[in-house]
């Protein structure tokens, strides 16, 4: 067990535990905090996978962006609010059965596949290369994605507008 392994297991444990808090907590704010730590854990795993740029973007976009979800939770769980925000859970049993099935299939799949290639993991900066890829091979998807974002933002502003 070397340093890399220990860090991996630490981040994995953090991620799974926080994901558990997210899904099973009765309090929306604690769910949001769980998501915060789960996504930070995933960012740590990205670093272990030598994806430095993705890791930072994960923190910048996701972890920073959860704030809005958190605020929703905060506003909904204010003391004065007397509305049903549906904090409960339903059909836990059937869900567990379905999910266990999915998990078994996934795990069997992963274990049965021969992972022949083993990466030669040399750590090198990825920022520049990803930028070049985005502007050359993936230029059209990139532009479409930006149009999608713009459309989503305009749509969101229109739907949420008060009138």
């Amino acid at each position: 067990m070397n340093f890399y392994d220990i860090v991996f297991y630490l981040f994995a444990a953090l991620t799974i535990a926080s994901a558990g808090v997210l899904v099973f907590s009765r309090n929306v704010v604690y769910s949001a905090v769980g998501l915060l730590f789960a996504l930070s854990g995933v960012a740590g795993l990205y670093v272990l996978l030598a994806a430095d740029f993705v890791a930072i973007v994960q923190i910048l976009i996701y972890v920073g962006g959860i704030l809005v979800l958190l605020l929703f939770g905060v506003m909904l769980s204010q003391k004065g609010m007397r509305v049903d925000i549906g904090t409960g859970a339903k059909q836990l049993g059937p869900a567990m059965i379905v999910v266990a099935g999915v998990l078994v299939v996934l795990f069997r799949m992963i274990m049965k596949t021969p992972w022949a290639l083993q990466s030669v993991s040399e750590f090198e900066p990825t920022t520049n290369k990803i930028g070049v890829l985005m502007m050359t091979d993936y230029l059209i998807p990139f532009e479409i994605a930006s149009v999608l974002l713009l459309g989503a933002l305009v749509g969101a502003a229109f739907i949420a507008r008060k009138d």
Partner: protein
Amino acid sequence: MIVPTSYYLFLGGILFTIGVVGVLTRRNAIVIFMSIELMLNAVNLTLVSFSNHLNSLEGQVFVFFVMVVAAAEVAVGLALVVAIFRTKNTVNVDEFNLLKW
């Protein structure tokens, strides 16, 4: 690299299923959003671990597109929740039966 790629895939699988549990069982629209984010992140983790495994950056580029779609989804989704909350005063998805006539 000492931890084999399959461990990352196991982790991704576990995270994904936790997210599925959240979507299936929770009744609060905000928590459902968070669970969807978790599922998307599990997929991203898988993409990045494959990108590392195959020594190619394509997987990481895909991660960005997934992030863009996730952002768009959350923006529109939260706007819908706000709109429904204004009219029905709830974020319990069991009460969201506007299309059930």
